[in-house]
């Protein structure tokens, strides 16, 4: 029986309290030792390793929107290290090793799942290139195997390996240690851990200018006021050219929209990650059940975070040829991020002609997998004013010296 005397509880009174926030939202202080521009995965990871490995905690991460709301929220979360050249092997494999211990390191679940990645070969040239890459990977201690169509079918039974399709599957490279992670959790894990060590995470704070005295960077001007900085580290992906231009620095980058999409939630049907450069699609199934698919970049330069519909249409026809089982799946939503594409499909990470200004850009379509690795190496570069051995080859000068790290084969559409 209800008690007629006591008043009714307010609506929602039975609900638990709001859980604790993972990080605070502080006002920017007037000066920091290091200002990291860009609060995505790379910026947050850089701040985390600056604090954890190098003891530099007077650090601000400036984000013009909300934390990890750019490409970190828009990528297809593929993690692998099966790149061709020794230079790439170094940094991507370093990253993969950090991924393998990251959940424990951050004390936060990131749903890192080493379900393997298949890179399909559709032509004789694809086969030759793929076998060469497998051999190169193994020489560098990266796990890689060459699978024939039957082996592909064993790893991923829903791939169409029939010989009578437009681009038949002639085999695939397989990296069993590759996989996916939950991108938002990765960002939150880094943000929470960096915040706990004293890093200020400042959102809605767009950098509008970079001040220098002589050849040295001294401060950034932002929409939330001027912030003096001993060192400034750029982690702005698609907007890197815009920031670099503030100090008159030209970069060999073009910014393009890169689109991806998800289906509605489905039963688990896709056990691994499948990528195909030739037919321009890469597919995995998220933990929740959506099929996550990425396309190639839109051809034109663009900062609009949206792309053209015919790209999605082509990507879907490619996906259907590879996975006839998807024919009745419904597309739930599509989106785009802005990626900074470099001439050799390799990143630019290191020093600049401006003292105290550090550059991390050019990851193009494949920066997510590098998050822990580049965070660690870039933090080292900033702390010591000297590149880490893993990012030493990825200088801005290589476009003048000609020492390019050409990863178009391993990166291509599906980086």
């Amino acid at each position, binding site marked *: 029986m209800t008690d007629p005397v006591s008043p009714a509880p307010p609506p929602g009174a039975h609900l638990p309290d709001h859980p604790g926030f993972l990080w605070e939202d502080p006002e920017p202080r007037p000066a920091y030792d290091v200002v990291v521009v860009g609060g995505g995965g790379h910026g947050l990871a850089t701040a985390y390793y600056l604090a954890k490995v190098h003891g530099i905690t007077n650090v601000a991460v400036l984000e013009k929107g909300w934390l990890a709301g750019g490409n970190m929220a828009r990528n297809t979360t593929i993690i692998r290290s099966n790149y061709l050249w020794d230079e790439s092997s170094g940094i991507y494999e370093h990253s993969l090793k950090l991924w393998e211990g990251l959940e424990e390191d951050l004390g936060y679940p990131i749903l890192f799942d080493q379900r393997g990645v298949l890179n399909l070969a559709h032509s004789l040239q694809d086969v030759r290139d793929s076998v060469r890459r497998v051999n190169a990977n193994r020489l560098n201690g990266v796990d890689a195997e060459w699978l024939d169509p039957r082996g592909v079918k064993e790893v991923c039974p829903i791939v169409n390996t029939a010989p009578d399709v437009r681009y038949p599957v002639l085999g695939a490279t397989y990296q069993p240690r590759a996989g996916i992670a939950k991108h938002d959790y990765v960002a939150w894990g880094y943000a929470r851990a960096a915040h706990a060590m004293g890093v200020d995470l400042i959102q809605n704070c767009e950098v509008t200018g970079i001040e220098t005295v002589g050849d040295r960077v001294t401060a950034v001007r932002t929409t939330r006021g001027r912030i003096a900085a001993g060192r400034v580290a750029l982690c702005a992906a698609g907007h890197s*050219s815009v920031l670099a231009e503030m100090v008159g620095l030209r970069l060999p980058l073009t*910014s393009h929209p890169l689109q991806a999409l998800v289906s509605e939630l489905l039963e688990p049907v896709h056990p691994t990650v499948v990528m195909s450069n030739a037919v321009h699609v890469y597919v995995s199934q998220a933990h929740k059940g959506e099929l996550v698919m990425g396309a190639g970049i839109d051809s034109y330069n663009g900062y609009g975070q949206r792309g053209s519909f015919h790209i999605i249409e082509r990507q879907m026809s490619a996906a259907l040829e590879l996975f006839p089982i998807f024919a009745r799946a419904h597309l739930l939503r599509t989106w785009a991020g802005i990626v900074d594409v470099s001439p050799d499909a390799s990143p630019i990470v290191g020093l600049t002609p401006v003292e105290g200004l550090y550059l991390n850009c050019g990851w193009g379509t494949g920066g997510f997998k590098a998050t822990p690795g580049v965070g660690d190496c870039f933090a080292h570069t900033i702390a010591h004013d000297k590149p880490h051995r893993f990012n030493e080859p990825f200088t801005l000068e290589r476009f*003048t010296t*000609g020492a390019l790290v050409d990863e178009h084969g391993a990166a291509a559409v599906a980086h």
Partner: protein
Amino acid sequence: MQLIPCPWCGPREEAEFHYGGQAHVAYPEDPGALTDQEWARFVFFRDNPCGPFAERWSHSAGCRRWFNAVRDTRTYELLSVYRVGEPRPDASERDEVVS
């Protein structure tokens, strides 16, 4: 899909076109005299503005001719198109190209 107004054929679907990157990048007049820095600039470095951008397009599934366009890279709106050899139009003299 957006319509791109080919200066020879009129508005056609974007899928008929091929992108050519930044316009008005001339081949060096005296290639032998270039330093490594100048070669790097010519080969690898292009403008990448967030805003109006003069760029080349080819109507590859139509008249197969190249032309130039000024397009806003934030909105993707084509501000003007002009034929190869014509100077870049002033941003203020905007054509009514998207009809």
